[in-house]
């Protein structure tokens, strides 16, 4: 059922065919389904894992705020039934920082894509990690700018084709876990869309973690990345992940580069403790207030 063309009223939510409701009904905006993502896109799986993780981590959904940027993954905020913000390109981390600093009771989740977070938002990403702002960043990495039509992203592997690299990508890509760890993130993990259960566990763990947590989700993009590189459809990508993913927990993040159709190392790489921005801030505040007395 397509979204009705209306500008004034509330569209009645679509009634599922089954007489029992979908278990994620209370955490998703079912009145907006079906979503805009292409067939066999992995973002929907990441959202499923995230909602499952919210329940698993026993988070109060009223106290979680989700912020997204622009792009395919940028639409996530619009489908998750939390206090959700769809903001400008690359700035969801900055927006979320404002929320978290102004109200430290809110758990901020930034759900966005690789182009949004690592290219235009790269500066905000490293600085939020450096400050150790208490937020979970879910970076869905599909190796390409998909919404604009398949341009080279900062994560596109060397030699991969894209609409703006017709002779193969010549720029070395970012290794997101390495970037996150060296900037100061306290929790870094990488999974593919195929590893839903591990991804769910990882997200639940990261949600409960104090500090800047990064979970990278490798996702198939059948419409652009696979099509331009002739890698088959989404299912072929999933089969590729099945055959070529190696799980190595605690692996040195230096070794996590992803080449074109090479082995992908997944797992939880970093889990450490660092004082968060708000902890340092309140400590500083009590010191100042104490000194003045």
């Amino acid at each position: 059922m397509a979204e009705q063309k209306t500008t004034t009223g509330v569209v009645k939510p679509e009634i599922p065919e089954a007489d029992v409701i979908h278990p994620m009904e209370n955490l998703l905006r079912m009145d907006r389904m079906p979503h805009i993502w292409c067939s066999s896109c992995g973002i929907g799986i990441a959202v499923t894992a995230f909602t499952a993780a919210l329940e698993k981590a026993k988070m109060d959904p009223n106290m979680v705020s989700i912020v997204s940027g622009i792009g395919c993954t940028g639409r996530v905020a619009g489908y998750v039934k939390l206090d959700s913000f769809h903001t400008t390109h690359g700035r969801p981390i900055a927006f979320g920082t404002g929320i978290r600093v102004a109200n430290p009771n809110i758990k901020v989740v930034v759900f966005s894509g690789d182009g949004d977070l690592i290219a235009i938002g790269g500066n905000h990403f490293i600085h939020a990690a450096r400050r150790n702002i208490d937020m979970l960043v879910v970076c869905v990495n599909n190796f390409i700018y998909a919404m604009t039509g398949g341009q080279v992203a900062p994560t596109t592997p060397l030699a991969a084709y894209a609409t703006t690299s017709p002779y193969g990508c010549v720029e070395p890509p970012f290794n997101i876990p390495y970037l996150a760890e060296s900037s100061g993130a306290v929790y870094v993990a990488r999974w593919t869309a195929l590893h839903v259960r591990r991804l769910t566990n990882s997200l639940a763990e990261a949600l409960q973690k104090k500090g800047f947590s990064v979970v990278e989700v490798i996702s198939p993009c059948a419409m652009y990345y696979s099509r331009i590189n002739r890698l088959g459809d989404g299912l072929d990508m999933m089969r590729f992940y099945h055959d070529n993913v190696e799980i190595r927990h605690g692996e040195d993040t230096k070794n996590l580069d992803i080449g074109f159709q090479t082995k992908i190392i997944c797992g939880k790489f970093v889990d450490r403790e660092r004082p968060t921005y708000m902890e340092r801030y309140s400590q500083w505040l009590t010191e100042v207030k104490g000194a003045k007395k």
Partner: protein
Amino acid sequence: MKLWRKPLDSDKIKIIRGEIHIIKDRCKGCSFCVEYCPKEVLEMSEEFNAKGYHPPYVKKPDDCVECHLCEMLCPEFSIFVTVKKEDEKPVTVASGEEQT
């Protein structure tokens, strides 16, 4: 599944069976659920949904063990599993005799 011998407590163990619900019009036909179902319960159907995709259908409803993998892997939130109601005929582990 072939068993070496019939487990001694096989009559006491009840395997929870699941019931699969498919919201057909949401499906975009990626077939992840069909591919990754460990019990091969699902299969793509020939029918078209409102969007023109082929949604899956439940080929072997009695085989579902409620693992929820199809639900987790569905990018469209269009398939989910509930526990089959108790009043239905309980299904036990297939016995050794049946296998041979």
